[in-house]
């Protein structure tokens, strides 16, 4: 069934969009990532103009995150206090990111910077997660070493300490604020929720327990992407509501299945899966940068 999208001004198959939304929703519920880093490239691939893919992707992420976060609230796996701190950093970061984006646009190098950001961050995080989760898996099979609650690192020696009861942490607010800020900047530049960066940062940098990480990151993503959606709609008129509705229909259903599935899988397995997924996306993007492309030319509308 073909459907004409009023803002994107292209005609696409409605079931393709629903399926795509479903796949991304599943990831969202399973891993606590918004799925933006998957949906945006997939939308490019089916012929949606990039600015519309980015803005509408953000809108779809709102829906799947709301759906996911509500499921997590029911399971009491959201650290609200941590969520608000991350959000405060995230909104400032998002604003900064848009500013950087405008500068890059003036230089005509947005695509390159976005792609490089993806490759570097996905590569680093994927490797880190894979290494860590394989080690954790081995440890659980041969329980020789004593497991600590969390590792004490430099982040725990900073001032302005705050109690995060749900996470069982007593740490400085500065690291979570900075994590939120960094994620916000990257989110605005890369057009994603930023969960795939935030989740590992929360685990490895802040030392939060995996149980609350997913719900808390979804909580932050919901608000940051909502802010991004409205900003895109107002300043660039690039949110296609018809496209969003179709993606959302698939997405919310996928997110529910993902959350259910996530509760059944073991944390280590979940982490290995996410690590492999992140590395796969990274590899694909890196190949695009290094291999000779089939088409050396690209068309962008307007004269910058």
């Amino acid at each position: 069934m073909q459907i004409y999208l009023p803002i994107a001004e292209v005609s696409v198959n409605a079931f393709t969009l629903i399926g795509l939304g479903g796949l991304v929703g599943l990831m969202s519920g399973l891993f606590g990532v918004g799925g933006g880093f998957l949906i945006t490239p997939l939308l490019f691939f089916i012929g949606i103009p990039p600015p519309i893919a980015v803005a509408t992707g953000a809108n779809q992420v709102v829906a799947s995150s709301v759906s996911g976060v509500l499921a997590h609230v029911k399971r009491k796996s959201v650290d609200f206090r941590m969520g608000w701190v991350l959000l405060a950093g995230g909104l400032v970061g998002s604003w900064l990111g848009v500013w950087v984006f405008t500068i890059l646009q003036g230089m005509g190098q947005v695509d390159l910077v976005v792609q490089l950001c993806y490759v570097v961050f996905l590569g680093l995080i994927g490797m880190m997660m894979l290494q860590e989760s394989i080690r954790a898996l081995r440890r659980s099979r041969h329980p020789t070493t004593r497991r600590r609650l969390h590792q004490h690192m430099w982040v725990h020696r900073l001032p302005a300490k705050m109690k995060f009861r749900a996470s069982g942490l007593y740490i400085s607010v500065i690291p979570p604020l900075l994590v939120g800020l960094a994620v916000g900047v990257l989110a605005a530049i890369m057009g994603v929720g930023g969960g795939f960066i935030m989740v590992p940062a929360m685990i490895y940098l802040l030392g939060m327990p995996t149980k609350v990480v997913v719900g808390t990151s979804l909580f932050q993503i919901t608000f940051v992407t909502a802010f991004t959606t409205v900003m895109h709609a107002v300043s660039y008129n690039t949110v296609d509501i018809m496209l969003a509705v179709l993606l959302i229909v698939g997405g919310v259903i996928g997110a529910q299945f993902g959350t259910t599935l996530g509760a059944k899988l073991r944390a280590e397995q979940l982490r290995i899966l996410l690590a492999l997924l992140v590395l796969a996306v990274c590899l694909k993007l890196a190949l695009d940068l290094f291999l000779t492309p089939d088409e050396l030319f690209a068309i962008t509308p307007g004269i910058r």
Partner: protein
Amino acid sequence: MRGAARGWGVLLALMLATAPGARAQEDEAGGVPPTVPLRAGDILPEDSWPTYPDPAQPRADVAEEPVGPVEEVVAGLSSDAVAITASFDGSDILIYGAIKRETPIPQGPPLQIIVTVEAPSQAVTVWRKQRRAGIWVNTDSVRIGAAPGFYAVATTAALDDILLPEWDSRYRISLPQAMRAFAGQIAVESAVPFTEALIRLREQDDLYRLDEGSVKLVEQTLFRADVRLPANLVEGSYKTRIFLLRDGQVIDVFVAPIDVRKVGLERWLYRLAFDQPFLYGLMSLAVAVVAGWGASALFRRLRRA
């Protein structure tokens, strides 16, 4: 056979009485066919005509001498408006017409027809990638001031055989000519690969099309052309042009508009997005939140049951 053709002619005449369209004012000779000493198929010296025309070049001057009997196009379109609805999946436009003449059909090479349909022009930037430190990067760009978003050319025979380059340049008929002007300074040594790339990319998307031999011409008098408008159309006032050619030269032009508009829900959403962007943004958010919350509530109930 003749009876059938005449019957069609009568039908056409009736349809034409109500068909939209306007005679082009482009022909300064006032309907008198101009001519040039070159003939179609003549081989031109290597340097006299670029193998690939540069859209920035001015229109070629054509010497005009009145010769031969007067032949004019009368034509109509199956529809002068295309409505884009939610289920819009492209549209077929039938362009039909006849040749009006006071004298018998002239001797010599047969009459040829070219039909073009074009969307409003937009500015585009074409980028070329180059390897820099092992990475493929957008390095050079050419800005094209005006390129139609859609351009279809339908002809009775191979375009090169029926149209002389100077006439192509004058009326901007072929695909390379459809692009109007470069904007700003051109920083690259040659803009040709960029314009070629634009045409190639748009042809892949079915937005630029050359259908040679798809116009049917009966007895050098009646013709019809079917042009398919693709699903990924943009709004605007489209232009249909019908060229009458003899001996590689344009002897008459007919121009008719096609109005392409979004209707219903599509139109309402589009207008809202541009007139009330904040409200539209909030609406998009509300849809997302309600859908997310709704699905969550629904699944909770399902799980409990």
